[in-house]
């Protein structure tokens, strides 16, 4: 392995791998992606993997998600079958009082071109007969869907490698410094140098930021998901909280807990989740649960992605966000524009780390 690169990306989850892949497309940069473990071992491998747009608010944030979702079909043509399915998304509500909020959401999202329908109970049940008759209605959009996260990240990595990008796995970053204008990344396996550096460590971005003297204002949020045995076709849409995978397994998850990096499953949450599953889809009562898993999600303090240059660190960049699966095609594209051309086709100002005003020292 070489020692010196144009770009080092730290983190090979969905965000880091996408950035590495999109950068590699131009074949103009020598790229190294470093991960402390292996792709899918962290957040990106423990998700329901929705490509979800329609009720993300405010509208400008929904719009960003929409642009990214629209890139999926093109991405698939380039890197291969990631089992992306635009199933349409249903977010049920249980009380009539929510209908007004739903209508207001539809109106706001329409302003940026996201088509949201507010469905009556009967309309929802016609679309998705397995849902509970206790629902009052739902918001619906055909832009939503899901993807197989395992295939997605595997194919990002394979495609990037094909374009000459290098990856180093099981290689923990210990220190980052600047020497003669270049970044020096010290890992357990050695030292690597680069002109540009991208932090894409998901929930671990916080500790990576510390190495640069930068506070990355994100929290770790645990989500616990239960998985059933393969069932015959039951759900055709992506539903708020659950979806059915290609192999028939139904994934259900609602929880969010701030417990640091603890990735255990607890029966308290598992039982609540099982209750919710039955309340949403009564037929799941008879399903067998085979396993549960937890993921540590990134949650920026204000909920919105942190994207772009790191203020005060020349040639240093960050990409940390909650909805990495949905946003990865767009984020990979925009970060490539930024690293190669210095500017982006969509203004990232509002997503800058600057908004938090938390720069402690300059590295």
């Amino acid at each position, binding site marked *: 392995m070489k020692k010196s690169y144009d770009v080092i990306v730290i983190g090979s989850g969905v965000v880091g791998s996408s950035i590495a892949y999109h950068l590699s497309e131009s074949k103009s940069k020598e790229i190294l992606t470093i991960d402390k473990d292996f792709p899918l071992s962290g957040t990106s491998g423990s998700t329901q993997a*929705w*490509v979800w747009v329609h009720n993300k608010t405010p509208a400008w944030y929904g719009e960003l998600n929409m642009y990214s979702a629209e890139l999926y079909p093109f991405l698939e043509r380039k890197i291969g079958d990631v089992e992306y399915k635009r199933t349409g998304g249903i977010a049920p509500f249980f009380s009539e009082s929510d209908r007004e909020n739903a209508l207001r959401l539809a109106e706001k999202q329409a302003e940026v071109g996201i088509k949201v329908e507010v469905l009556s109970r009967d309309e929802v049940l016609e679309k998705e007969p397995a849902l509970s008759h206790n629902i009052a209605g739902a918001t619906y959009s055909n832009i939503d869907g899901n993807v197989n996260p395992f295939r997605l990240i595997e194919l990002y990595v394979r495609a990037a490698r094909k374009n000459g990008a290098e990856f180093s796995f099981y290689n923990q970053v210990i220190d980052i410094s600047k020497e003669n204008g270049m970044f020096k990344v010290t890992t357990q396996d050695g030292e690597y140098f680069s002109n540009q550096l991208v932090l894409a460590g998901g929930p671990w971005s916080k500790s990576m930021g510390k190495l640069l003297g930068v506070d990355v204002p994100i929290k770790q949020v645990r*989500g616990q998901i239960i998985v059933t045995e393969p069932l015959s076709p039951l759900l055709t849409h992506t539903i708020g909280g659950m979806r059915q995978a290609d192999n028939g397994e139904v994934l259900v998850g609602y929880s969010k807990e701030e417990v640091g990096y603890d990735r255990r499953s607890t029966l308290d949450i598992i039982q609540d989740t*099982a209750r919710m599953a039955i309340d949403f889809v009564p037929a799941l009562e008879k399903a067998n649960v*085979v396993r549960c898993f937890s993921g540590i999600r990134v949650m920026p303090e204000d909920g919105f992605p942190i994207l772009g240059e790191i203020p005060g660190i020349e040639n240093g960049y960050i990409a940390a966000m909650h909805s990495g699966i949905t946003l990865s095609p767009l984020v990979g594209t925009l970060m490539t524009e930024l690293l190669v051309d210095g500017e982006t086709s969509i203004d990232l100002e509002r997503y800058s780390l600057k908004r938090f005003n938390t720069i402690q020292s300059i590295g």
Partner: protein
Amino acid sequence: MDKSTIVCRCEEINIDEIESAINMGAHTFNDIKRLTRCGMGPCQAKFCMNLVRKIISEKTGQSLKDIKPPRMRVPLGVTRMSALASNKASSVASVFGESAEEGETDHEEEL
């Protein structure tokens, strides 16, 4: 041995598929599991745990003591959803207004 020999019976994963994952750089059972689904089925790797560890060891030269078992998942043993939900009061909350991709964010519309 014939590379098409099944290792994980639940998900029908053979030696060749496990070796391909190792060739891609996966050196732990958990990482191989996510790439191949080996050990993800109903028996939850009870059967293939040490078979896969042996293949990793042979292929990568790591000692068996350095190859950990896969993460074991709750519930231990296949469990009915209705049993899990027993003694839990119904608590339907609307997920409306939340975006719920990997755990749910909660952005209230600013009016």
